[in-house]
């Protein structure tokens, strides 16, 4: 059963259909929220709220539209709102009190793909919110240009130029603050 049919059934009150849609998309929604918020608990809240909001808006959802970018659009907006709320201060306080010393790692551990990807995310966090969303959607979540445009509510034709600018900004941050990522991998 495709997404459009699941949405139609949900509109008729079939919660099993909605649950099937959620199971299909909860991972990218949750992961996007994790990338934006940096906290799994906050991301879980935002992910739940994404599906609650989406469910309440299904009556006006355009069935010709892909559902994944729409869900990610809601996630991005809720994450922004979350960061403006008092909750971010509580989270900062929690992180401060739970902060652990940086793990001692060997040189080998600090050069693996997982470590590099975490450093990359730290670099992305230095960018503007718009650039962050672009980088996360295109490269971390691997959305197409079309889906990215849909998720960000922008014209498809501007995704390429905005992506290019975001990559340039990221490169500047990396060159300045994360030189280890700027080094070309040896073949």
């Amino acid at each position: 059963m495709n997404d459009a049919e699941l949405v139609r059934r949900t509109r008729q009150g079939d919660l099993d259909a909605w649950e099937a849609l959620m199971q299909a998309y909860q991972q990218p929604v949750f992961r996007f929220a994790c990338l934006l918020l940096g906290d799994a608990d906050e991301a879980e809240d935002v992910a739940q709220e994404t599906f609650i909001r989406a469910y309440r808006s299904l009556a006006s959802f355009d069935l010709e539209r892909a559902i994944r970018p729409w869900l990610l659009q809601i996630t991005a907006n809720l994450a922004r709102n979350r960061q403006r709320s008092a909750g971010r201060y509580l989270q900062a306080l929690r992180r401060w009190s739970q902060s652990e010393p940086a793990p001692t790692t060997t040189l080998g551990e600090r050069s693996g793909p997982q470590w590099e990807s975490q450093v990359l995310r730290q670099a992305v966090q230095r960018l503007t919110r718009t650039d962050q969303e672009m980088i996360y959607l295109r490269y971390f979540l691997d959305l197409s240009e079309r889906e990215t445009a849909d998720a960000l509510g922008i014209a498809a034709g501007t995704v390429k130029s905005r992506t290019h600018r975001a990559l340039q900004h990221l490169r500047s941050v990396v060159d300045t603050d994360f030189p280890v990522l700027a080094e070309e991998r040896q073949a």
Partner: protein
Amino acid sequence: MSEPRSKDNWEQRVRDTAKGFRYPLTPDISGAVRQRLEGRTAQATGSGRRRLSWALVVVCALAGLLLVPQVRASVRALLRIGVIEIELPTATPQAQFATPLVQQPLTSTPMLTTSTTLALTPTPRPTPVSGLLALVGETTLDAARRRMPYPLRLPTYPADLGPPDRVWVQDLDGPATIVAWMDSENPTRIRLALQVLFSPAFGRKSAVIHLEETQVNGRPAAWVQGRHMLQFERATDHYDYDLGRLVEGNVLIWTDDTYTYRLETDLPLAEAVKIAESLR
């Protein structure tokens, strides 16, 4: 290495590096949401319980900070309704606007310059239409409905209101719709204007003289009377600037599950609430 090849390499490097990112295990979001939709649980559980205990810690920490006079003086009282933050009025009857306005989407006044002091009065005046002519993004109601992420509801009271005469959609880091009904007896004036805002738009009202907390559909709302400043933050790829204007008249601000609404009117509060509660 030529410039284009370097660009492609960097993009590929980012793509390859991002693939190695390890995410936390995805929890059972679908099950939790289903429970909420069926009414079996009231709210999100992910961080709710932990948030309560940390709230107590923050309250204690803030109480200690507020013992410092300098801290107390610097804390401005704020009321937040949806995406609109309102600085609570002070005892000062006049306001001095030190920051020149950059842009006035719905302006009814000339642009202010530095150190202009206004004698503020609570008398509401309808917004002249001349300000709207400078507003970008005029469109049709159908087009606005397609742009907004959730259904766009409009007032059905008063009974003779009808569909809006003018519609705009603007980019405030997310689509924002403004609908206006013109005064049939004075076509140069707006009878009613409704702004529909969606996160991540973020606006701030300052230099507020009169603020009253009220309710719309049982939810907290704010009623602002008299001239005050309204500014929106917006960050784009091209520039960051504040959209600011001087608002005259009365404004009712409220939210529902989806949007934050601003109703600009010269009607009294009771009528404004009736209009707000008539949205369908």
